[in-house]
């Protein structure tokens, strides 16, 4: 009976879950990028329609969804640095686990700085009637 493989860089534990999260956040950001390129293209065609679409970005639903977008970007960007360090730094693979927790901690700190400010801005705009 073969024993269960121990957690390696990409199988099991933080190594695998960071990879899963990297994929999920990457796909989410990709689809936002498609939409964002199209909505920004409106500045060339119709300033009024651009402002109309941007108004939805200030609304309650998309406004709060932006928190998820920023969280995804923070994780994907910082974990990307971790991936680069694993590939190019001679001790990267050895410290991949601790680097994962550094990524999570940094992402949380940056998110904690961003979220209250952004929520206040969205609420402010809802009160203005967006």
């Amino acid at each position, binding site marked *: 009976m*073969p024993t*269960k*493989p121990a957690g390696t860089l990409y199988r099991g534990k933080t190594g695998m879950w960071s990879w899963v999260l990297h*994929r999920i956040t*990457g*796909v989410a*950001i*990709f689809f936002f*990028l*498609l939409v964002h*390129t*199209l909505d*920004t*293209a409106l*500045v*060339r*065609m*119709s*300033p*009024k329609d*651009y*402002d109309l679409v*941007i108004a939805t*970005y*200030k609304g309650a639903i998309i*406004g709060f969804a*932006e928190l998820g977008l*920023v969280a995804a*970007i923070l994780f994907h*960007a910082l974990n*990307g*640095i971790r*991936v*680069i360090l694993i*590939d*190019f730094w001679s001790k990267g693979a050895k410290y991949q686990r601790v680097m994962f927790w550094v990524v999570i901690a940094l992402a949380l700190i940056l998110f904690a700085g*961003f979220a209250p*400010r*952004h929520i206040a*801005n*969205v609420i*402010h*705009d809802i009160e*203005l009637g967006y």
Partner: protein
Amino acid sequence: MVVIETPRSPRSRKSAKFERYGWLYMRFSGVALLVLIFGHLIINLVMNGGITQISFAFVAGKWADPFWKIWDGLMLWLALIHGTNGMRTIVNDYSERPMIRKTLNVALWVVCAALIILGTLVVTTFDPCVDSSVSHTLSVCK
């Protein structure tokens, strides 16, 4: 126990070269995108009221300076190619039938090219005075 199959047909030399450059591109563009996107988020979503300040006039103000046109243009090219290449990796991992894989990958690159062309045209031909009923508030159009 899960055993990873022995690869029976190694990649061709040409394909291996493409994958190597793709791999390098993801890392170099990733570092550049970290700077570009964090900068974009700080300027557009954190400072001066964040999301509340965004409007046509805000974009026109930013793009009056070629610096932000280049910034946004670079972001467009690097991010779309980075994202499309990432999606290609995922398609290659999960699609089992060659026809479906080919179709999805072609669709990805067609969308990527279309959005890069569209976005590049938008940034390079931007006209703050395109709609006179809106632009009369902008000093450059008077």
